[in-house]
């Protein structure tokens, strides 16, 4: 299943919640930090725009954060120890 499909499987309220969480996190992103993702090089303000628009880049980053939080909660990130 691709990133976009998993994101699409969320219902409307779940997507809204996720968007709020990720936007709150991006607000505290260091200004000197950029990310290369999905064929683009993106800075903080561009990232905020992508997430607000919920376009492909925005969805990828939202899903990345969702998976990280899920894995953190499930203890999966310590499974490699």
């Amino acid at each position, binding site marked *: 299943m*691709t*990133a976009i499909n998993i994101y699409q499987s969320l219902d409307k309220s779940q997507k809204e919640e996720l968007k709020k969480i990720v936007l709150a996190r991006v607000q*505290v*992103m*260091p*200004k*000197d*930090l*950029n*990310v*290369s*993702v*999905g*064929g*683009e*090089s993106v*800075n903080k303000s561009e990232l905020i725009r992508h997430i607000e628009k919920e376009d492909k880049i925005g969805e*990828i980053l939202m899903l*990345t*954060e969702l*998976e*990280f939080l899920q*894995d953190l909660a499930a203890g999966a*990130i310590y499974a*490699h120890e």
Partner: protein
Amino acid sequence: MNKSLLVTRPNDDCTTNYLSFWSLSVIDEAKRKGFDIYDLFAKKANRKDFDSYLRFQKPDILFLNGHGNEKTVTGFAGETLLISSKKKPVKNTIIYARSCSAATILGSKLISWGAKAFIGYIREFIFGYTQSKITRPLEDSLARLFLEPSNLVVTTILKSHKVSEAVERSKEMMYQNFKKMISATATYKERYSASWLWSNIKNQVLYGDMDAVV
């Protein structure tokens, strides 16, 4: 006859420029190991040259740096180098695609065309970098955390280790870096971008013969 490495290094935007610079240490290692190097740098990372080297030099290792999606990997200025709908002569080649999502469809296609093994990402390959370092990518300690472990895929294969070992070592280094990034000693930038490296750990995959070596 020497073993050979074909590497594509477009550099027409910030992402590809970083990948291009960070590939230099892999090329150096290949030279040390006595490999013949076919370096498609900048505008040379075009379809015509790529096809020619692939057909006539039959590289043992193909190291692709560039943008990609489920079905394609591109070269300079977005020109398609590999696409799942057009068969290419990759028989007996070990391929590493440092690009987004190419493992989803293209990876298995390359195996069906005879590639020994394919390593890539089932989703986006993500890396963080420092705006103030964009003219000196090799001095970017944040990008190093993402790109050094990905280089390890190829440098391990160059040393005649199995591809499965290459992936294992790369993942292990990613995980060590990830642990550093979420630790109390990490910088704020490192902590912030740790989730991106976690995504790369989860999405790096290997298809084909797990025991393949050059």
